[in-house]
C-alpha cells in the first residue's frame, strides 16, 4: 500500500503538463470575468485533443480511447484541472458515446463514434420532462411505430446546451401499457428534424444553459434506436453509472479553492488580507479537508473498481459530497467579494468588454453561486442519492 507515482507515471505527468502548456488555448481573460464559453471555445480544445488522440481517455482503445491505466487517467484529470483546461462537453464523450459502443449496432458505432471524437456532432440529452424531475421513469414522451420510423411527441426540459446540438439522445415511451421502467426506448434524434423546437430557459444568474425541447410528430428512423425496443432503461442505467465517474469533481474543486485563496489574498479585511481572518481561513480549511476526504474516498472507490468491484451505489456519496463542496466554493467566493457581489452585468451589450465595476473576480460571483445550486439537484438530486445509498448500501 502506497501513494507514490512510479517513474513512468511521473514521466507521463510531465508529458501531459507540457502538452497542455504548449497547446491549450488562452481563455484567461474570459475565465477571470466568469464569462460563458461559446460553442467554438468549447470545441477549440476538443479538436486539439482529438488531433492528439487524447479526447476520450475513458473509451476502450478500439473505439478511439487512449489505453491509459487508471493512474494515468487520474493524472490526466488532475493535470487538466490544475491547468484549468476548458471542460469537454460530456454529452457525446461521456454519455451517448459509451452507450453506443456498448449497445449500438455496428452501423451506429461506425457512424456516430468518430463524429463524437472529432467534435463534428454536438450532442444533448433528452431525459427530464416537466413533471418527471427526480422520478425519471415517469416520462410521457411517446414514440409510435410507423413503418421504418417512430413518430415522437412530447416535451423534454433541462436540456443542457441543446441550443448548439446537432443530435440528441432521448428516452421515449414505446409501450404505454408496460410498468414505468419498462416500455422505454433509447432514440438518437437529429435535432434538425422537422418538429423539433428548442426554447431557452434562463436561469437565476441570467445564463442560457438549459432549454425546453418540444417534439411534435418528429419522424425518427428505427435504425436510430439503440438496443432493443422497450429496453431503453438498460441504456439509461448504464449511462447513469458511467456518468458518475468523475462526478466528485475533485480536480476542479481544487482549482476552485485555489481561486478562493487568491481572492482572499486580494480582498482587504481591515488592515489585513481577508485570508488572515480566522473565520474565513477556517472555511477554506474546512473545504480543503473535506475535499481531501472526498478525493481519498474516490481513490478508494477507484481502487475497488480496479479490483473488479465496478462502480457501486457508493458513488452516490461522491455525488453528494462533491456537489456540496462545489456549492460551498461558490458561496465562499460570494462572501469574499463583499459589496461587489451585488452588481449585475448582464445589461451590457454584445462586444462590450468593459467591466470597470469592482474587481474582475467579483464579476460573476453571485450568478455563479445562484447557478451552482443546481449541482445538488441535477443528475439525481442529493435526496435521491441518499435514498439510493439507504436502499442499495444500507439495505433500508
Amino acid at each position, binding site marked *: 500500500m502506497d501513494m507514490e507515482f512510479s517513474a513512468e507515471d511521473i514521466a507521463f505527468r510531465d508529458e501531459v503538463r507540457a502538452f497542455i502548456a504548449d497547446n491549450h488555448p488562452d481563455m484567461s481573460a474570459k475565465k477571470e470575468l466568469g464569462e460563458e464559453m461559446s460553442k467554438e471555445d468549447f470545441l477549440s480544445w476538443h479538436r486539439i485533443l482529438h488531433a492528439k488522440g487524447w479526447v476520450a481517455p475513458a473509451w476502450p482503445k478500439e473505439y478511439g480511447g487512449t489505453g491509459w491505466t487508471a493512474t494515468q487517467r487520474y493524472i490526466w484529470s488532475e493535470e487538466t484541472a490544475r491547468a484549468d483546461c476548458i471542460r469537454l462537453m460530456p454529452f457525446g464523450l461521456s454519455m451517448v458515446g459509451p452507450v453506443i459502443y456498448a449497445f449500438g449496432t455496428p452501423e451506429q458505432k461506425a457512424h456516430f463514434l468518430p463524429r463524437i471524437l472529432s467534435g463534428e456532432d454536438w450532442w444533448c440529452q433528452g431525459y427530464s420532462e416537466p413533471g418527471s424531475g427526480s422520478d425519471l421513469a415517469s416520462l410521457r414522451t411517446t414514440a409510435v411505430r410507423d413503418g421504418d420510423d417512430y413518430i415522437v411527441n412530447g416535451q423534454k426540459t433541462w436540456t443542457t446546451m441543446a441550443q448548439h446540438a446537432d443530435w440528441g439522445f432521448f428516452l421515449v415511451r414505446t409501450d404505454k401499457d408496460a410498468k414505468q421502467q419498462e416500455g422505454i426506448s433509447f432514440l438518437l434524434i437529429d435535432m434538425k428534424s422537422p418538429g423539433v423546437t428548442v426554447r431557452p430557459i434562463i436561469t437565476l444568474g441570467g445564463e442560457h444553459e438549459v432549454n425546453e425541447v418540444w417534439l411534435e410528430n418528429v419522424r425518427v428512423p428505427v435504425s436510430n434506436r439503440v438496443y432493443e425496443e422497450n429496453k431503453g432503461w438498460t441504456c439509461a442505467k448504464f449511462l447513469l453509472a458511467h456518468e458518475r465517474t468523475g462526478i466528485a469533481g475533485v480536480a476542479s474543486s481544487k482549482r476552485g479553492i485555489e481561486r478562493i485563496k487568491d481572492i482572499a489574498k486580494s480582498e*482587504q479585511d481591515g488592515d489585513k488580507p481577508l485570508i488572515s481572518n480566522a473565520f474565513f481561513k477556517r472555511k477554506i480549511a474546512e473545504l480543503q479537508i473535506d475535499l481531501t476526504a472526498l478525493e481519498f474516498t474516490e481513490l478508494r472507490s477507484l481502487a475497488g473498481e480496479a479490483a473488479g468491484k465496478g462502480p457501486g451505489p457508493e458513488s452516490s456519496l461522491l455525488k453528494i459530497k462533491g456537489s456540496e463542496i462545489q456549492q460551498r466554493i461558490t458561496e465562499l467566493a460570494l*462572501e469574499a467579494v463583499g*459589496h461587489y*457581489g451585488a452588481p*449585475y452585468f448582464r445589461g451590457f451589450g454584445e462586444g462590450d468588454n468593459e467591466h*470597470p465595476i469592482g474587481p474582475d473576480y467579483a464579476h460573476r460571483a453571485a450568478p455563479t453561486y445562484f447557478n451552482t445550486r*443546481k449541482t445538488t439537484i441535477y443528475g439525481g438530486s442529493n435526496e435521491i442519492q441518499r435514498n439510493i445509498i439507504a436502499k442499495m448500501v444500507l439495505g433500508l
Partner: protein
Amino acid sequence: MDFTYTETQDMIRDTLSRFLADSYGFDARQKMINSETGRDPGIWSALATELGMLSAPFAEEHGGLGGGHVENALIMEEMGKVMAIEPYLQTVVIGGGALKAVGGAQADAIIPSIIGGETTIAFAYAEPQGRYDLANVRTTAKADGAGYVLNGHKGVVYCAPWATHLLVTARTGGGHRERNGVELFLIDANLPGIVRRDYPTVDGNRASEIYFENVAIPGDALLLGGIDLIEHIVDNATVAVCAEATGVMAKLHEGTLDYAKQRQQFGQPIARFQVLQHRMVDMFMEVEQAKSMTLYATLHLDKPASERMAAVSQAKAKVSRGANFVGQNAIQTHGGIGITQELAIGHYFKRATMIENQFGSADYHYERFERIVIDEAN
C-alpha cells in the same frame, strides 16, 4: 413588557399590505425592474401621497404619524414580502433616521419633503477597500471656506440612480480607518463633480459607483454626530433589513410549502416525504427565530450604544444565517424550477442572499457581538 401592536400599527400594516398586493405582484415587479429606469416612480408617489406611508416614523411636528422603529420594521417586513425595490430603507429609515437624530433646521428643512415623496436619498458609505467597517473611509471632505470639498469613490450605492440626495460618509480628519474624523453629509445628488456609473444589481435593484471629484458642498450639509451617529443609523438600517428579511424568508417558506403540497413525484405530493417535512419545519423555525430577533433588536435601538450594538449584531448574525438556510432549502426543495427566472421563488432567494451580507456578514456581526459582550467583560 408589552409585545402588542397599536391600532395605528395594525392599520399601517393592513393598508400597506393591501396596496402592495394590488400593485406589486411578481409580474408587475419584473416589469419595473426590466424597464429602462428600473422602477415605477408612481409607486413611490402613491406610498407618499395616497397612503401617507412615508410619514410613519416621523414626529407629528414634521407632519409624521409619530411612530418609530416598530413602524419601520412593520413596513420593511411588508416590503420584503413583495421584494419591493422602493428606496424606503435608504430614504426613510436611513436618511430620515439621520435627520431625526440631528434635528433642528436640517430636519425641519428636509423631513417634510421626504414625507411628501419629493426627496429620495441614497446612502453612499461603502468603499471598495472598506468591507463592512464604517470607519474605513478614504473619501475626504476638506474644509473650504464655509463649506467642504469632497473627493473619493463610493461603491455599490443602492438606489442612487433614483436619488435626489446623497447621504455620504467622508473624512474631515484622522487617518485611514480611524474613527475620529469620519462625518456624515447630506448633499444634493446633482452637484457638479459628482460622477455616477449606474448598473442593475443581482437582486433587482439599481445601484451606482459614485465618484466625487472636487465637489463643493455647503457647510450645512454636515449632519453633526460623527462615527457615533453613523453607527446608530446603520444599526437602524440593519434592523430594518432584518425586518425585510423576515418578509422574504416567510415568503420563501410559504412558497416552498405550497409547491411541496402540489408537486407530485413517485405518485404523491413531495410534501409527504418526511425528509422534506422536517426540512420545512427547520425553515419554519428559522423564520420564527428571525422574527424574534428582529423584534428583540427593534426594541433595543434606543438603548445605550453598546447594548444597542450587541442586540443588533445578535439579530443580524442570526438572520443572515437563517436567510441563507431558508433560501438554499427553498431552492433545493423546488428542484430545477427554483433556479429559473420564471418563478418568484428564485428572486426571493436572490434577495435573501444579498441581505445576508448587507450591512455586515454573519461573521462581521458575530465578531462585533463578541467584542462587546465577551471581550469587554474580561
